[in-house]
């Protein structure tokens, strides 16, 4: 069983590393990351905060946009692509279960994602440390950023698997994956913002809004990271919310976990109904 899961994971790493879309997104991730570190950390001099910490604050916003995108790019092909190529017939005519298959894919894709994040953000951390902006706390902030970004990635990988198991055409799966990204990353926040403006003091702002943030892994990610950075004062924006939350920020982390677990289970159930 483990042998088969690892085999699939290993193959996915190999395929992921040769995937030009993934390469492109890693290049973009690194470029943005370095740009934010070099340009965005300028004000740190006037505040009593380390350059690394303030860079991580900017990078977590970058993660919210790019990590789900990379994850969905990795995942949308997982089932529909194998159906279209006819390879799913081969895989499931071997003694492999649907759960093993998806778990193997998820592990492989997570490894690719982790590698991309470590390269992209790691290079920034090393650069900052080399130019004298490094400290232990900063490195911990970077490690937390990479760790939680991977978790965020898992949530969106699982969403991608769901989409990929629902349709039989890769192109449809790709379109749906982009749709999910647009809704959860862009439109969701806009809708929340609109609702908040319309009802800034009432029931929505106090009771619905915090949980609406928890329900979306991207917002939960941002919430947890900004709260954990302890840099609320100067990061502003959503971080101000963190103080007035009706729950401790670590709940947000659990929420992403739960979301990923639920989505992955859903994907396995859906895959079991797929006829390759």
């Amino acid at each position, binding site marked *: 069983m483990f042998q*088969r899961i690892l085999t*699939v994971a290993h193959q996915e790493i190999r395929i992921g590393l040769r995937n030009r879309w993934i390469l492109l997104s890693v290049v973009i991730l690194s470029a943005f990351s370095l740009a934010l570190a070099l340009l965005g950390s300028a004000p740190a001099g006037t505040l009593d905060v380390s350059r690394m910490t303030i860079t991580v604050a900017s990078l977590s916003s970058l993660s919210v946009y790019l990590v789900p995108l990379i994850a969905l790019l990795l995942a949308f092909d997982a089932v529909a692509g194998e159906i279209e*190529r006819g390879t799913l017939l081969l*895989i499931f*005519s*071997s*003694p492999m279960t649907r759960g093993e298959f998806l778990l193997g894919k998820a592990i492989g894709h997570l490894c690719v994602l982790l590698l991309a994040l470590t390269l992209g953000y790691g290079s920034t951390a090393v650069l900052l440390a080399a130019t004298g902006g490094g400290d232990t706390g900063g490195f911990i902030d970077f490690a937390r950023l990479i760790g939680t970004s991977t978790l965020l990635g898992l949530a969106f990988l699982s969403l991608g698997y769901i989409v990929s198991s629902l349709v039989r055409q890769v192109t449809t799966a790709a379109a749906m994956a982009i749709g999910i990204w647009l809704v959860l990353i862009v439109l969701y926040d806009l809708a929340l913002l609109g609702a908040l403006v319309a009802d800034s003091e009432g029931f929505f702002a106090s009771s619905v809004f915090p949980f609406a943030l928890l329900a979306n892994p991207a917002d939960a990610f941002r919430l947890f990271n900004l709260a954990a950075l302890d840099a609320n004062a100067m990061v502003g924006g959503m971080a101000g919310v963190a103080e007035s939350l009706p729950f401790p920020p670590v709940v947000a982390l659990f929420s992403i976990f739960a979301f990923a677990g639920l989505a992955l289970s859903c994907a396995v159930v859906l895959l079991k109904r797929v006829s390759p």
Partner: protein
Amino acid sequence: MSTTVLRAENVRKTFDGRDAVKDLSFELGSAERVALLGHNGAGKTTFFKMSLGFLPICEGQIEVLGAAPGSDEARASTAFLPESVAFQRTLSGVEVLKYYAKLKGEDPTKAVSLLEKVGLAEAGRRRVGTYSKGMRQRLGLAQALIGTPKLVLLDEPTSGLDPISRQNFYDLVSEISANGATVLLSSHALTEMEARTDRILIMSQGRLVANDTLEHLRAAARLPIRLKVKAKDEPAERLADRLGGTPVNCRSVEIMCAREEKIARIAAVTSLGPMIEDIDVHLPTLDDVYKHFSEKAHDEDRAGEA
């Protein structure tokens, strides 16, 4: 020892109220080479998918080595090559084979030596994206040979192969069955089978219309033999009067006769001596035999509906 490797009993499969497969019953013994013939949409692929447990069976049952299709026992001893398979273009042939060997729990190094068997030893290190259609097909075949399957299901394995590769392919099939595996392969042309299979199943409109050796099928079809006699200087009409048959294009006469009459008819032709320039004997081709059986089913269906 002949055990039943694959057994189908009154299998029926319906898609949206239309029968894709109905009343399908047959058995395959060990080390048999069997061809499953049928035109596009005759139900061959549907049958394969049911035998692998990918599609639920509506009525009847299929047993693979005494186990249910798709069960662990069945999958452990079954190998399959789908009709069209496109491996990841960015992987090399060796990487693809090692992957499937590991999924099947077999030795990956041993699996790589199969590339040589299908003539891909040179290309093994190259990426699949650079392969021709025939090479991809052969890679798929190598995949189906990994380990020691007891039942090998090949869905249209020879489509896209050139004549030489096809020859090599049938050599391989014979080798697999010599090692004790049962091979069931589908095709839509009978001509390419040519004595390379032990038994032939013909499916038409989802039903099994023939199940026998090629020789028996040929005899059972009772298709007439066609003699084409070319006249020397005589008009074809006069020749036709003396021999029976129909004149074609002024110079020749065509005579249809049963197998038993063949010698007598040829004797009659040769007795005309100098009037004859040439004689051609056309045995019914395999395509004729195939057409006969699949059309027979068609006619019966129509009679049934009316």
